[in-house]
């Protein structure tokens, strides 16, 4: 049976490659997997919840307030504002393709989207709410109650709200970026300069951390391997300690989850502290503090051009 499925899958792949007139490339970067098939009722509930400000304590913030799907799944501020109008500690990462990250949050404090929902809803800096009140608000809405009863055997519960949101987020993938097309064998999808940019990206060692399906998002790394970024930046904060705040491990000072580079061109500003307003600046910082290299002239530009090919589509439209 499995063999059968495998043959079928291979057949499909072969069919696709025939259509693209080329085989997929074997690169350290991988194209996005297909969007997972999930219960549409739950996904639909997740969509409603995602846009529902009742998740925040004072009905001011929904998930979509900071994770704006029209802004690359994040917002354009270095720090989004919490329910109380005060800026949060770190820059808002994009919600797009978040399901493909091995951990959630900059400091990777949780493994799953469900737990991520829990942290955000109850965080005193973000939504500041409690599950008791959230569940009550949702359950008191007859429309929600009915749909929850349809989608879940036990109706409106904390795990079901988390699950619905997480399921919705799992569907938030941005396929069909030009680079993915290239990876899938359509080598004409990239211009020569973009291909050079990709080649530089690999040569300079960006690829050491930004690889895999999500081009990042699968490991932790110290920010400032080749130099102390925070000293140079000034005003070190608690959030700058990154994963250390979670593990307390001395090895984890200023260690962060390597962010995904998908849609990176539309998610400025960059880094956990939102300190890089442009992609060029972000690439320069990476060269200096992570790679310990000085790029040759134009290489930054080339890399930035390559990075722009990583922008995918949402609902059929490029982000």
């Amino acid at each position, binding site marked *: 049976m499995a063999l059968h499925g495998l043959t079928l899958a291979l057949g499909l792949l072969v069919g696709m490659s025939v259509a693209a007139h080329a085989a997929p490339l074997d690169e*350290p970067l991988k194209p996005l997997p297909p969007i997972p098939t999930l219960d549409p009722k739950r996904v639909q509930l997740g969509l409603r919840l995602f846009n529902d400000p009742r998740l925040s304590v004072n009905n001011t913030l929904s998930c979509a307030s900071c994770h704006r799907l029209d802004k690359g799944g994040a917002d354009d501020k270095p720090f989004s504002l919490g329910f109380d109008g005060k800026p949060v500690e770190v820059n808002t990462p994009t919600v797009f393709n978040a399901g493909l990250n*091995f951990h959630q949050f900059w400091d990777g404090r949780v493994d799953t989207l469900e737990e991520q929902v829990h942290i955000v809803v109850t965080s005193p800096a973000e939504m500041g709410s409690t599950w008791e009140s959230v569940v009550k608000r949702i359950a008191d809405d007859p429309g929600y109650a009915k749909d929850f009863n349809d989608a879940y055997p036990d109706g409106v519960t904390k795990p079901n709200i988390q699950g619905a949101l997480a399921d919705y987020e799992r569907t938030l993938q941005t396929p069909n970026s030009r680079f993915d097309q290239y990876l899938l064998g359509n080598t004409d999808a990239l211009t020569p300069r973009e291909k050079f940019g990709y080649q530089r990206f690999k040569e300079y*060692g960006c690829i050491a951390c930004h*690889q895999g*399906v999500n081009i990042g998002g*699968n*490991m*932790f790394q110290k920010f400032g391997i080749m130099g102390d970024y925070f000293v140079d930046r000034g005003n070190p904060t608690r959030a700058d300690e990154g994963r250390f705040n979670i593990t307390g491990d001395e090895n984890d000072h200023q260690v962060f989850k390597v962010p995904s580079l998908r849609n990176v061109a539309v998610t400025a500003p960059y880094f956990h502290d939102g300190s890089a307003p442009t992609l060029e600046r972000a690439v320069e910082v990476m060269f200096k503090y992570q790679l*310990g290299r000085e790029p040759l002239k134009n290489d930054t530009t080339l890399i930035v051009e390559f990075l722009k090919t990583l922008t995918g589509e949402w609902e059929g439209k490029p982000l």
Partner: protein
Amino acid sequence: MTVLRRLGLAFIGVLLAGILLFMYINSGAQQAASYIESRDLIRLLKQQDAIWDNEILKSRIALTHNYDPLVSPLHEMARLWQRLDAIEAEPGRHGPSLWEAQRDEYLKLVKEKTRLVEQFKSHNAVLRNSLAFLPTGEDDIQGQFARLPDTYRLELQNVAIDTYDLLLSSMEFAQLSSPDIAAEVLLGLNQLEVNKERLPEGLLNSVEVLRRHIGVILREQPKVNELLTGIEMVPLADRLDTITNLLEKDQAKAAAKYERNHVYLLVFATLLVLILIWLGIRLIRSFAEIKRVNNALQTANDELEQRVEERTRQLKDTQSELMDTARQAGMAEIATNVLHNVGNVLNSVNISADLVSRKLRSSKALGLGKAMQLINEHTDDLGHFLTEDAKGKLLPGYLNQLVEAIASEQQSLTDELAQLSKSVDHIKDIVATQQSYAGANSLLEPLVVSELLEDALRMNSGALTRHHVTVIKEYGDVPRIMGDKHRLLLILINLISNAKYAMAGVSNHARNMTLKADVVDGETLQISVKDEGEGIPEENMTRIFAHGFTTRKEGHGFGLHSCALAAIEMNGHLTAHSEGPGKGATFQLQVPLKLAEGEP
């Protein structure tokens, strides 16, 4: 007692069945199945762990640059573990807290390994990057050297060589991170630091970059090696083996229990079967008992039947005896009856005989003798005598008178003898009738009812005359019938005789007896004898037909009885009616009318 025993037996049976059911439910087929599944899950876990290790090593030797495979086994392992935990955490599978201890240990190890792998990923990425950069950095420096003016180049020859040496030792260090080589690299780095001061500005930067990267290698390589060793040291596979051992041990225990259960099952099943067999035997025995009792009952029944039969036979014997007795009694009755009737007729015979003998005694025939004597005395002169003699002259006249007298006398005698003969015939008939009682059906013959009545009257004529009974005859128009003459006659004679007796004491009025014969409704012949005698009192009305009932001193009590019997034998009946004592009585015989042949 029996009920108690049965209840006890039923209880034991139910108990055994319950135990069997319990054991069946408890029996560990399921356990065995889940054990196999658990073993399979552990195998898959080990496989994922090995894949993980493999991917780590591949990253270590820079075979792949994609770290996704270092993440995915963990997801798969978490999924597998969840399934395994769901199976094994079920109560009763392991000793208390045994599984929990294993689970905690496993999760701790996974966490530790994950932590080390995360660190490995980070450090390895940095190390790989720097190692990959080394040749580029070196090329960069050597390129710059090459571009330097020759004099300068000669001067810096040593620096170039030192840098090259440093590169080599760094690469050597990447392969074999011994302290010697580390010291060598450190020495090279210091040398580079010293050489740096002699370098021109442009070259300085490149050397600095290389130096930093080598520094990274020097720092990260031992770290990566240490992490790899650490990862290798995480006894995750061993833990899984331990878990396997635990499973095996508990499975062995479960199997032993299963086996023991089987033995128990066998024992209890055997017990149950034994009870069933015992019950079966009991059943068979009870069947035998029932059969035996049935047989006994059958025997008793047969005996009883036999006894009943015997008794019936005895009763039959008694009955036939009784019947014989009855027959004898009947015969006696018949004899009495016959004799009574014969007596009645004999009376007539007697009278006739008396009459004949008296007539003969006073017969005028004697005169013939005297006449003959006279003739004989005058034989010689007979003519003279007859013509002349006074006496003789009278003789012919006398003889003529005598002839007349004798003729009348003879006629009278002949009549009387005819009557006698009739009576004798009647007697003969009575006797014949008596014989017919013995079984023969009555003999039907054509009869004229009036003649029959006259015969009956004639048979009683003497008595009737003696008793001065006037007979009033009211005969209707009765056709010739087929009838039993003797029975009818018997009845009539008796009734007439009774009427005559009944009126024996009557002196205040004429003794009238009325005889009636009629046909009623065209199908019944009705003959009645009415007297005006003493009558029948009410209390005797029902008894008069009974055998032995009589009101007369010399009576037998057979007359009316036999009459009633005879009437019944002719399919008719005899009834009596009386207004009461002194008011006379009417006896009425009714028999079905059977017309004689030739009658209309």
